[in-house]
């Protein structure tokens, strides 16, 4: 098999050992016969939701199985040899030499105890591709190409001394340094803020173009993969769904699943009019964390009306979750007041009565850790019913079933444990637990961020439906502007502890924009070929114009 294909995967099967609770460990197949190929200098996007097997397939190009994962069948040809049949020595030469890897979290993938330069050049020197001096010169060149500040010296720093976006670029430099033939990019921008993602994405794209390297680009975000790929392979639960050019997949998807992925975010929500009496009034809130002398919230003023949704949007570190902590009383504010349902709330949790606690509920990002793993769904939802309403026995059980019905889950879930639920189901149970208290306000903190797009969509639809029935208000904290557009009535844009833009949804999302909101909105990837180039070109023109 010697043609110009760089990577050729035939009928790849991958298995893993699972340890389900209460059962004997057994082997299951997680990838069921996948075939694809990558030519020199081309980029193939692997796309699918979690559990689709994208990363597992990507790592098989390096003959690597993470944890208990093992390649059980098929062929993986790299540069004309089947790497599943060659020995360990040859595989070591392949890893870090011919094929390299960029992980989702550069922060975790860099060794905290070693300087960046040592780690970036390590593989190139080890594989005998360059001398130490040559490798360092190449690394500096790559740092510059990837738009890192002070490329001459950034390598002398330790990983914790650079920002997340910079470290992700360093990881790309690490992968490109040994002049590999193929780079496996595993969700390289997923953990970044949108405004950072766009720069890293452009840096990666230019680096791929300039070095002529081929790539496997793994992501769950079709809009992102559309910007960098030549071809796309859609995966679902370890099966190939659709395989074609990027143009065909985006503009003319054949399979139903691909169509669903392309058209996700189909929710639309009409903005409601403000009522005369808001349920929540946050007035002049300023707050700081204990032992610091820096205000993380500066003079925040927002209002939320009954049965409506206020979306608080911003990047990491903007103070949006801190605002939630102040409203719930977890972080007493330095100044200002929280006016809720016709009364002022005590600034700290200890001073609030049962009624305050009941009417103000929370749903969290990680449903996993927000539930006691040793309690059944019935116990979890039943707790607030006992605590706030004193329900017992049959009465309590009936109410639990009613709530399960509201979150579109059947009575059969009542005796299940959280570990037996999917990510979306777990979040639904958390929603039911919040609703059980019959609250006036639910604070939703990044509740869909950890979920796959289609599942997240389902959760948002459910939240909107429940709002109509229960007349509950949501304070919806998110970094995702698409979510905001889908569900908000009013929006507060936060940046460095301040609300930089606030008003009804239509007003906030209509020009003229302030600089930050403009940057934020224009950074959200769109499912359109050439979007990335257009944005970058626009920005260059604007900065030239200024």
């Amino acid at each position, binding site marked *: 098999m010697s043609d110009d294909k760089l990577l050729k995967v035939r009928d790849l099967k991958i298995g893993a050992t699972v340890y389900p609770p209460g059962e004997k460990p057994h082997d299951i197949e997680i990838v069921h016969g996948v075939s694809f190929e990558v030519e020199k200098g081309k980029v193939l996007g692997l796309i699918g939701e979690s559990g689709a097997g994208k990363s597992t397939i990507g*790592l098989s190009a390096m003959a690597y199985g*993470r944890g208990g994962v093992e390649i059980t069948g098929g062929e993986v040809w790299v540069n004309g040899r089947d790497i599943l049949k060659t020995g360990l020595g040859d595989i070591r030469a392949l890893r*870090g030499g011919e094929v390299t890897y960029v992980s989702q979290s550069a922060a975790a*993938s860099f060794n*905290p*105890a070693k300087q960046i330069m040592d780690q970036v050049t*390590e*593989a190139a020197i080890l594989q005998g591709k360059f001398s130490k001096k040559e490798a360092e010169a190449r690394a500096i060149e790559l740092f510059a190409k990837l738009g890192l500040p002070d490329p001459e010296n950034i390598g002398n720093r330790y990983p*914790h*001394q650079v920002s997340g976006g910079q470290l992700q670029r360093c990881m790309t430099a690490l992968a490109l340094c040994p002049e590999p033939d193929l780079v496996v990019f595993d969700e390289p921008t997923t953990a970044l803020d949108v405004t950072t993602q766009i720069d890293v994405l452009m840096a990666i794209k230019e680096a791929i173009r300039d070095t002529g390297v081929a790539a496997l680009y793994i992501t769950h975000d079709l809009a992102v993969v559309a910007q960098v790929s030549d071809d796309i392979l859609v995966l679902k639960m370890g099966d190939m769904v659709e395989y074609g050019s990027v143009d065909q997949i985006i503009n003319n998807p054949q399979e139903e699943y691909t169509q669903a992925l392309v058209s996700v975010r189909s929710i639309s929500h009409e903005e409601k009019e403000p009522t005369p009496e808001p349920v929540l009034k946050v007035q002049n809130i300023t707050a700081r964390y204990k032992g610091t002398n820096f205000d993380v919230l500066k003079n925040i003023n927002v209002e939320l009306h009954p049965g409506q949704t206020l979306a608080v949007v911003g990047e990491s570190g903007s103070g949006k979750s801190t605002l939630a902590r102040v409203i719930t009383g977890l972080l007493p504010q330095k100044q200002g007041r929280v006016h809720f349902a016709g009364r002022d709330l005590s600034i700290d949790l200890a001073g609030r009565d049962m009624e305050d606690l009941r009417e103000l509920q929370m749903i969290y990002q990680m449903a996993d850790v927000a539930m006691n793993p040793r309690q059944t769904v019935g116990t979890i939802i039943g707790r607030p019913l006992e605590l706030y309403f004193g329900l017992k026995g049959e009465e309590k059980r009936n109410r639990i079933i009613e709530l399960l019905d509201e979150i579109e889950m059947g009575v059969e879930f009542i005796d299940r444990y959280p570990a037996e639920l999917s990510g979306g189901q777990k979040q639904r149970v958390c929603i039911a637990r919040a609703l059980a208290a019959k609250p006036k306000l639910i604070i939703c903190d990044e509740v869909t961020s950890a979920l796959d797009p289609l599942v997240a969509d389902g959760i948002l639809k459910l939240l909107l439906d429940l709002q109509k029935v229960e007349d509950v208000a949501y304070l919806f904290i998110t970094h995702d502007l698409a979510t905001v557009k889908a569900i908000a009535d009013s929006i507060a844009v936060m940046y460095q502890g301040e609300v930089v833009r606030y008003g009804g949804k239509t007003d906030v999302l209509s020009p003229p924009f302030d600089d930050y909101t403009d940057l934020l909105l224009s950074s959200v990837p769109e499912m359109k070929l050439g979007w990335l180039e257009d944005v970058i070109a626009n920005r260059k023109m604007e900065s030239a114009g200024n």
Partner: protein
Amino acid sequence: MPLIVKLLVQRIALGLLLLFLVSILIFAGTIILPGDVAQSILGQSATPEALANLRRDLGLNEPPVARYFNWLGGVLQGDLGTSLASGQDIATAIGKRLGNTMFLAFWAAIISVPLAILLGLIAVRYRERWPDKVISAVTLASISVPEFLIAYVAIFVVSVRLRWAPSVTTINDSMSLGEKLHTISLPVAVLTLVVLAHMMRMTRAAILNVMQSAYVETAELKGLRMFNIIWKHAFPNAVAPIVNVVMLNMAYLVVGVVVIEVVFTYPGMGQYLVDHVSKRDIPVVQACGLIFAAVYIGLNMIADIVSIVANPRLRHPK
């Protein structure tokens, strides 16, 4: 002041404070011991006048607080007092003994620490396979058997049967280093066996913990050999817990050798202490206690300092 300097100064100040508190404890402990020093020196047949005179000479009539500060003042100037039993200056007597104990502890540490870490690395490299299991089984068995039993078995086999090394390990200044090492080979071997398991297990656990990290996967995907991954990428991040347990064991080598020194009649601190406890020689017991405490606190302080310095976030702040 950089954070790291502040942390180090804090840590050292805490160590000194702790040592001060321990000195109070030691002094108070020896005071509340039942019995009377003067009585034990002069014996049951002493006249009341002689007892009263001796008490006055020893300063036992002064209030305890004043005696404590007298004692502490002396200690700070290097004066540990005089032995009640022999009338010798304690500092001189201890100096020699402490040197001997340190000599033994030093050679035990030189062998056991690198050996324990190497065995730990090998156990990680071959985890859950036979080398790991053999290392774990042997080291755990050796820590589970009381050290005096190991010592006597070693004396019986190595000294009596094989005649490779002496069982009585008296060393003196006229011996060359080689002769000294040959003489102490048995106690060093026994001490090594005693402290090995703890350090080896901790090395293994700390490195295995780090081996789960994403950066170890990165190293694997660079094509590094497993031993290089463990040594270059995992070990530097596991230094803090390893150093902690190493220092605990070093402290044990100095402070805990009492049994071994007695078994091998080695002229170190341990034997000196045991001799004088039986003679109710309070100043010697106090001096030994204070020196042991200082060694213990000092070594643990070094462990803390190494942990602080090994943290790149503190060494290279943003």
